[in-house]
């Protein structure tokens, strides 16, 4: 219908009465939206409408031009020659008597047309210095002379400011614009403040300095009663933060966090945490403030934040004592209401540095710090209380158990109590808790020196490494099944590995089968603490030749594997590892084999697909993609149907040649498509990055 009527519309637009022409023009807007091809015929005609005498026809013409430009940005060049004409039109409106009195709205002549003109000028001037020059005059005129007492005037002013910021204006004009926004901000009318905050958010990306001047007002707006204003103000504040004002702003934000309503809390918490991490002036301030955030809104703090905090603490040895004291104080004060994040961070610190808490340990207090008085008993009491709480999260229990274990080495006087505490969870229903408890209890059978060695202080975790690994995929790993071996070496290894390869976390001792070299694994074995942090890689030496013999089934290969022990020169095989676990029970295992030896770039992967789900899946197909520096060849699979319950498996060989072997690691993206039991197609995608090293 649009196509059929378009010629008629064109005709009316050219020569009808003004009444009809304006309707025709707006009708054209609808037509070109429906049928963009028809735009051609209207491009020229829209411009001719500008010459009409009637304000409504002009308005319709400008609206049409705007729509054309928005739909097809290339038309901007066509319309740029009209910039002087548009400015002329606008100028005439600003002069007294420029338009018939009928078009007046509270003293402004045809504000609707003015706003549309300004909008069009914005599009035409963007990225074009010459056009912007031509319009700068009129923009300055509008911005300075408009009557801002009524809403109509403010509407035009608002559009002017947006246009100034949108085109290539000179510095003076921009300053004028920002000052106008400042005036809006100070206005008591909520509408004006909303509008100002909205625009400032766009400005702050371009010109932060100018906006800093209004920081105080903006912070006030954060606490406003109006939720729309609050939201805008918060976004603006994030954009404003820099090293200079971080302390003041964080304090404000933290105060606000205490009183704001629930719908804002998660967002606000994560933003504050990000800000603290990015701009912290010094470590002590960092720890303090993150601790405050956790106390106020612990339930919204994500695990990554806690882990990052712990990484930070380990990297600041001079602050260990301070950190643990702060944590202890907080935990003691808030033990009833503390959330998971606060609990796990505090437990980790207490476990790691517990002995520094006890008076007389000889570690001086930092300035301005209140003294902490507690004894070994108190520390153990605290851990016991946390463990005893029925509502405690399983993760919290795990951390508490590990902390208790570490404390046996730090506070020798409390060993019997701690041992009893640990033993209590030998029959816990949670698998991880039970396994930890039984493994730790087992460790007591070891000779004391060996146990002490295992529970030594953790080495400083490499922050850069950690941050890099945070970006990598985290796969769940099954707790080790070791511990049944006879030799103490193996059992302690198992115990440490039990601590290491635990739930939710990275995978360290993933690669299995071969006995791993002593030097690398014993470090993580020491103080089997934060499991996923161990994914960062064992750094630093440690005594005790502990050969870990760990089976980690669900792991896709370690990120930082210990040096492969004396691999045969050729060929090299790596044990199978599951690289993908689908939602419906489909699993993919890769077995790596290097027929050319470990220095060759060629890897042969035997992919095995199995289905643990109840019913069979059909049309199973895997597609793989590799980065440019690698070559990939897929052999046809042995079948496309995966019977259920893991009854049968499909095998497919994949050949990968890494031309940057040794320089760049393998990476592969898999796209798996199949039809599940009901016949509906399923598509899943995954990235495999954790190839065994040497691949």
């Amino acid at each position: 219908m649009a196509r059929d009527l378009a010629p008629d519309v064109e005709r009316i637009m050219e020569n009808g009465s003004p009444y009809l022409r304006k309707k025709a023009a707006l009708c054209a807007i609808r037509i070109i939206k429906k049928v963009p091809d028809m735009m051609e015929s209207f491009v020229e005609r829209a411009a001719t409408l500008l010459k009409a005498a009637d304000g409504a026809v002009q308005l319709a013409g400008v609206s049409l031009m705007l729509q054309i430009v928005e739909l097809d940005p290339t038309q901007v060049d066509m319309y740029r020659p009209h910039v002087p004409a548009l400015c002329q039109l606008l100028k005439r409106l600003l002069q007294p008597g420029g338009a018939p009195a009928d078009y007046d709205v509270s003293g402004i002549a045809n504000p609707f047309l003015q706003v549309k003109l300004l909008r069009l000028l914005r599009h035409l001037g963007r990225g074009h210095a010459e056009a912007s020059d031509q319009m700068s005059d009129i923009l300055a005129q509008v911005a300075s002379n408009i009557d801002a007492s009524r809403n109509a005037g403010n509407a035009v002013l608002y559009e002017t400011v947006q246009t100034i910021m949108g085109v290539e204006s000179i510095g003076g004009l921009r300053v004028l614009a920002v000052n106008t926004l400042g005036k809006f901000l100070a206005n008591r009318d909520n509408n004006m403040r909303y509008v100002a905050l909205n625009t400032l958010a766009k400005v702050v990306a371009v010109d932060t300095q100018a906006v800093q001047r209004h920081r105080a007002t903006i912070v006030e707006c954060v606490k406003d009663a109006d939720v729309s204003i609050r939201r805008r103000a918060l976004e603006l504040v994030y954009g404003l933060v820099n090293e200079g004002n971080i302390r003041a702003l964080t304090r404000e934000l933290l105060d606000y966090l205490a009183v704001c309503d629930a719908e804002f809390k998660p967002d606000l918490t994560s933003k504050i945490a990000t800000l603290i991490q990015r701009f912290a002036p010094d470590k002590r301030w960092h720890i303090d403030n993150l601790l405050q955030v956790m106390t106020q809104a612990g339930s919204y703090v994500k695990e990554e934040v806690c882990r990052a905090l712990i990484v930070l603490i380990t990297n600041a040895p001079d602050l260990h004592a301070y950190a643990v004291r702060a944590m202890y104080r907080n935990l003691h004060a808030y033990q009833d209401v503390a959330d998971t994040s606060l609990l796990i961070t505090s437990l980790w610190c207490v476990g790691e540095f517990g002995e520094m808490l006890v008076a007389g340990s000889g570690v001086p207090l930092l300035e301005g710090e209140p003294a902490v008085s507690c004894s070994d008993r108190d520390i153990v009491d605290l851990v016991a209380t946390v463990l005893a709480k029925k509502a405690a999260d399983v993760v919290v229990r795990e951390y508490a158990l590990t902390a208790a274990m570490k404390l046996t080495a730090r506070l020798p006087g409390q060993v019997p109590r701690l041992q009893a505490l640990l033993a209590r969870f030998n029959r816990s229903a949670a698998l991880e808790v039970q396994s930890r408890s039984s493994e730790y209890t087992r460790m007591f059978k070891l000779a004391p020196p060996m146990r002490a060695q295992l529970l030594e202080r953790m080495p400083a975790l490499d922050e850069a490494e950690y941050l890099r690994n945070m970006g990598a995929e985290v796969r769940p790993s099954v707790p080790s099944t070791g511990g049944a071996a006879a030799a103490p070496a193996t059992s302690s290894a198992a115990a440490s590995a039990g601590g290491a390869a635990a739930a939710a976390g990275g995978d360290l001792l993933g690669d299995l089968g071969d006995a791993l070299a002593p030097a690398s694994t014993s470090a993580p074995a020491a103080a089997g603490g934060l499991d996923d942090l161990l994914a960062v890689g064992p750094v630093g030496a440690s005594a005790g030749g502990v050969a870990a013999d760990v089976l980690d089934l669900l792991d896709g290969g370690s990120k930082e594997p210990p040096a492969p022990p004396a691999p045969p020169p050729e060929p090299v095989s790596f044990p199978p590892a599951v690289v993908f676990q689908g939602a419906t029970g489909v699993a993919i295992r890769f077995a790596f084999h290097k027929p050319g030896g470990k220095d060759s770039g060629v890897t042969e992967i035997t992919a095995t697909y199995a289905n643990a789900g109840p019913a069979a899946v059909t049309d199973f197909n895997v597609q793989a993609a590799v980065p440019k520096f690698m070559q990939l060849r897929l052999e046809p699979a042995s079948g496309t149907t995966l019977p259920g319950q893991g009854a049968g498996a499909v095998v497919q060989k994949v050949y990968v040649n890494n031309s940057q072997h040794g320089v760049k690691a393998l990476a592969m993206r898999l796209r798996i498509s199949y039809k599940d039991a009901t016949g509906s197609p399923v598509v899943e995608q995954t990235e495999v990055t954790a190839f065994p090293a040497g691949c």
Partner: protein
Amino acid sequence: MIHFLILMSRQGKVRLAKWYSTYTQKERARVVKEITPLVLSRPLKLCNFLDWKNVKLIYKRYASLYFVCGVDAGDNELITLEIIHEFVEVLDRYFGNVCELDLIFNFHKAYYILDELLVAGELQEPNKKAIHKAIGDQDQLVENAKNGVEEGQGAAGR
């Protein structure tokens, strides 16, 4: 552009609804249902703008009626308020001190007036007098048609 214009009473009854984008019947009902509590629950002092899905809601309360406009996120909110005000002024001029009852009983006229003011989601006529004249002309046409019919009947009857 304006996607829709809804007039609702304080109790949440929709007196007038005009849609300038394609919305199915179901979507329309859903929009109305979701917007009503959002707008009606706003206290007086707050600003007249709300974010909802990908549309900005601009509302203004006149006596017992809420005029709600849904516009694109990038539009000038203040000028939309002016458009709403323009509509109210034209209604006022036409009905003479318009009140909600006028709109309930003459809703067809209200729609005609709106059609003279907004087309395709854009403002059509900034001049209130011109709109008034156009509506006057239309009314005249209706009168003529009615009279013509009566005359014709009268002539036939005679």
